[in-house]
């Protein structure tokens, strides 16, 4: 005990000084305490060393293991896909019941769900026919609202189409306003019978009818009142019924859990009437991945889709657009005129960018302001873009739409005398268009799928765009000489877009049937355009002169409206000369257009008094004499054809929509 001399605790390193001091201090006081202290200190010290050592070993091991497993993130990624979304909440909760009221009468219909009015229509001269509402069977949300004017022809076909698309299990509500039976044909009646309706299939003239049922399931309520006489209506009926809600489980499909299906699920739980996109068993794809275009010149050109509240149109349009070769989805922006939800849902289904626009002004001016805002926004969002493609929601887009633009867009850069490139040929009907590789220059702006040059918009159009108080059509305004300033548009012979819209601002079924239905639409992929550079200003004149020199002059004594005006040949070029006194004298042309059943509401498709189209697979040129500079090609012996306009009585349809 006595020989214990506290060793100078050297290893303490930094603490050295302090330990010396301590040693000295403790020597004077208590040796035992000192020994204790040294021992504890040493043990602690050992412990620390051990811990540091272990840590070092662990660190080294980790570094080594990391070096050895480079593909680690990929593994993580696979796992990631497996657990992207936690399993959905499966509790069914208390079963609820919806309280549904349906009213049908001559002048008013309404539907209320749990006290909330989801449909009310008492406007006069509107909303005639069968109103159909689809509710989600799990949530009670309105998924679709339609009215089919089954007093008019073909509307029942649309209704059959729609009802067939509705998923089984959904709650269907039908109610008649005014009259819904006149053109309700057997197919439609059979369908109503299959839904379990008693009165639907027997619906008579001016009957009132209210129906609630589950698609494929039981009828939940029905009321019907017969009209007593031809001149009067059935009594108003009010149907009140309870609709039991099913669990969310039953209302949804079990698609694989992918990003795409999450979009699909969100969409399908909100809206109805889009057919197989929501089919549980075999849903139609919502991603198309068309072939990329080699050397795509329009890959970075923004695409503005101008839309209103026609979500079914938008759906069809976007499908065709996203299926076109060379499309780049991130360049697409859909501009919706108004705060409508369903079009936004459609946009979200396809994973695109959607922008809503508070409506300004009314009617045509509203469309015009929507266009302006959309175009400005497009060039703001894509400041590097030199062009923008402008589309509308009621167009089908040809599979080679972008290929067509990619081959021709350099013309807009190189030729200042061009105003636009359009995918639409106003005069390209089934019987007047033939050659998908052929392009024209025309003095009119067709719209309906076209390319706008940024400099034209920013420097000329935007600063003087019609203000909201001017009720002008934007396209009519763009066609005015002050704007167009003698420039021309490039169009294909066979259109690359197809206008399918039947409802629209200036559009109705009759008008569509007469002017749009028989329009030719290219379905051939990858068409190689012919001789694109011959579309430039000077080159085109050479081309036209060559054509006219080759062309065989038709027999001008025959009636140009007769089919026999053109010989039954194929692949020939023919020319006819019509009377055209001045640059704006289109009397004979309009009559000719009328009897050829092409666009005759105003003058379209002309180039310096020349029209080019196809008849019976022959290229058919029409030259206005003497206004056209090509009149020099007229043989002296030929007298230009003159067609008398009919006496004015048949009020021609108003302003033609070409929006």
């Amino acid at each position: 005990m006595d020989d214990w001399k506290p060793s100078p605790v050297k290893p303490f390193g930094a603490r050295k000084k302090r330990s010396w001091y301590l040693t000295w201090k403790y020597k004077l006081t208590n040796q035992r305490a000192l020994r204790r202290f040294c021992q504890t200190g040493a043990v602690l010290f050992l412990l620390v060393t051990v811990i540091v050592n272990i840590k070092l070993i662990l660190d080294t091991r980790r570094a080594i293991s990391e070096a050895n497993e480079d593909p680690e993130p990929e593994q993580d990624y696979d796992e990631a896909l497996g657990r992207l979304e936690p399993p959905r909440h499966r509790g069914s909760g208390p079963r609820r019941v919806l309280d549904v009221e349906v009213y049908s009468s001559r002048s008013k219909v309404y539907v209320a769900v749990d006290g909330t009015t989801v449909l009310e229509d008492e406007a006069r001269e509107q909303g005639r026919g069968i109103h159909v509402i689809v509710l989600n069977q799990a949530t009670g949300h309105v998924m679709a609202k339609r009215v089919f004017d089954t007093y008019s022809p073909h509307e029942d076909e649309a209704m059959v189409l729609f009802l067939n698309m509705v998923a089984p299990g959904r709650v269907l509500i039908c109610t008649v306003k005014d009259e819904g039976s006149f053109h309700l044909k057997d197919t439609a009646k059979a369908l109503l019978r299959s839904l379990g309706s008693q009165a639907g299939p027997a619906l008579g003239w001016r009957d009132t009818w209210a129906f609630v049922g589950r698609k494929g399931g039981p009828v939940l309520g029905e009321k019907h009142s017969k009209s007593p006489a031809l001149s009067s209506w059935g009594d108003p009926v009010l149907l009140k019924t309870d609709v039991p809600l099913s669990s969310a489980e039953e209302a949804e499909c079990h698609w694989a859990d992918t990003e795409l299906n999450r979009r699909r699920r969100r969409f399908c739980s909100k809206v109805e009437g889009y057919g197989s996109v929501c089919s549980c068993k075999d849903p139609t794809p919502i991603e198309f991945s068309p072939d990329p275009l080699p050397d795509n010149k329009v890959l970075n050109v923004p695409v503005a889709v101008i839309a209103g509240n026609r979500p079914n149109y938008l759906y069809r349009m976007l499908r065709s657009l996203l299926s076109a070769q060379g499309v780049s989805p991130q360049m697409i922006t859909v501009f919706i005129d108004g705060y409508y939800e369903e079009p936004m849902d459609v946009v979200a289904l396809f994973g695109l960018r959607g922008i809503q626009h508070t409506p300004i002004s009314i009617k045509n001016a509203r469309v015009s302001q929507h266009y302006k805002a959309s175009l400005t926004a497009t060039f703001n969002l894509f400041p590097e873009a030199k062009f923008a493609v402008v589309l509308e929601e009621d167009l089908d887009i040809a599979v080679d739409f972008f290929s067509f633009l990619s081959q021709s867009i350099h013309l807009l850069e190189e030729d200042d005398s061009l105003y636009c490139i359009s995918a639409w040929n106003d005069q390209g009907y089934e019987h007047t268009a033939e050659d998908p590789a052929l392009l024209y220059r025309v003095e009119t702006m067709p719209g309906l799928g076209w390319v706008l040059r940024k400099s034209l918009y920013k420097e000329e159009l935007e600063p003087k765009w019609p203000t909201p108080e001017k009720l002008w059509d934007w396209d009519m305004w763009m066609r005015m000489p002050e704007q167009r300033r003698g420039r021309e548009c490039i169009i294909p012979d066979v259109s690359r877009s197809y206008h399918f819209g039947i409802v629209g601002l200036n559009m109705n079924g009759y008008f569509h049937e007469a002017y749009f239905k028989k329009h030719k639409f290219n379905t051939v992929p990858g068409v190689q355009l012919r001789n694109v550079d011959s579309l430039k200003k000077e080159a085109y004149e050479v081309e036209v002169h060559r054509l006219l020199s080759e062309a065989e002059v038709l027999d001008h004594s025959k009636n140009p409206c007769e089919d026999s005006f053109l010989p039954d040949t194929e692949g020939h070029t023919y020319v006819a000369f019509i009377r055209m006194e001045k640059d704006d004298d289109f009397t004979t042309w309009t009559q000719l257009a009328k009897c050829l059943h092409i666009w005759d509401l105003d003058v379209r498709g002309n180039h310096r008094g020349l029209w080019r189209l196809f008849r019976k697979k022959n290229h058919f040129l029409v030259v206005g004499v003497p206004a056209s500079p090509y009149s020099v090609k007229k043989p002296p012996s030929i007298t230009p054809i003159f067609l008398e306009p009919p006496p004015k009585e048949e009020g021609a349809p108003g302003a033609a929509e070409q929006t």
Partner: protein
Amino acid sequence: MSRINKNVILALLTLTSSAFLLFQLYYYKHYLSAKNGAGLSKSKGSRIGFDSIQWRAVKKFIMLTSSQNVPVFLIDPLLLELINKNLEQVKNTSHGSTSGCNFFCVPRDFTAFALQYHLWKNEEGWFQIAENMGFQCLKIESKDPRLDGIDSLSGTEIPLHYICKLATHAIHLVVFHERSGNYLWHGHLRLKGHIDRKFIPFRKLQFGRYAGAFDRPELQQITVDGLEVLIPKDPAHFLEEVPHSRFIECRYKEARAFFQQYLDDNTVEAVAFRKRAKELLQLAARTLKKLGVRFWLSSGTCLGWYRQCSIIPYSKDVDLGIFIQDYKSNIISAFQDAGLPLKHKFGKVEDSLELSFQGKDDIKLDIFFFYEETDHMWNGGTQAKTGKKFKYLFPKFTLCWTEFVDMKVHVPCETIEYIEANYGKTWRTPVKTWDWKRSPPNVQPNGIWPVSEWDEVIQLY
């Protein structure tokens, strides 16, 4: 005896272990220096230092972005600075032979990357995958300022910032959006209510305190510390931009309100004037940029921007400000070469310099040079007839970027003070008659030029 032995053993043990510890300390010091001293360390072990959390986070992040095709490039000022200093060395080091972690292992809280939003093809799902890789991510979204200028549009919100945290290190992904005027813009990082304020120390972030604007950088691919990254081709230029990148948006809402009250002038003349003024401004901006001279919108042009986000159609000229220390003697000849002849020159470089150039169609470009005093700035005016001098005083200001007529230009950040100094509190009301000698509230007489100097300080063409 046994007790002593025990003590001896204890002491021995302590000795050995402390020797061991010393060795470790030395080793650790070495290891730390390898991590810190970029370019200095001569460490031998090839994997030394690569287990730092910074490096690991960056590596994971780069793996993620390259597998998901997220177009990112490095903008972290600290790292760019280091890389810029050792650029040659970095370029010469081939991929395999990395010697030590010299850059990405530098201790820091964040690593900042930029995301080129317009090149990003598949945004969806990226976030989820990042989180599943171990990142904790935060996304900050806001409305799209590019739609703000247009009445009544409301779009999908755009992402402005992503912050992804891996253990203690966070990757700050700044989303760069393309704007009209050929520049990239990033948004202000605004913490909304539901965001966890303690997620990371937000105050220490290098980007996001304000919105920012940058020239679109050209990029280059380099291999740094075994990781392939894109960085600006000219890191020095980018680094210079960073401290002066603050961007302020035009006040579109107030401008709309202004036009509701005073109706926009859409006559042919007004449209034509705006077009000419815009072209003149663009020409002036190009010319000054070539010279490397900073300028900002001043007087009426600045008021037009601030009050109505457009050119005031009756203003008749375009006004720019330049700090006198940025003056270059070849300004006049550069403008003349650009097709803008000198109209008049008042003052001299030492005092009250003011240049005026004649644009096309009777539109004038006025350049005022600003002199800095301890507590204010001023520019001078000269009355040609009398040789009287005037002084226009402004409170001190700094420069910010903004977008005006499809251009990225400077304006005083403290715009309201600047405008109120120049036009008084009533600047909101349009005034068509303006006497530059009397109307401005900040004008002061400043004596008279000595007649002997008139030839130099009053030049009219």
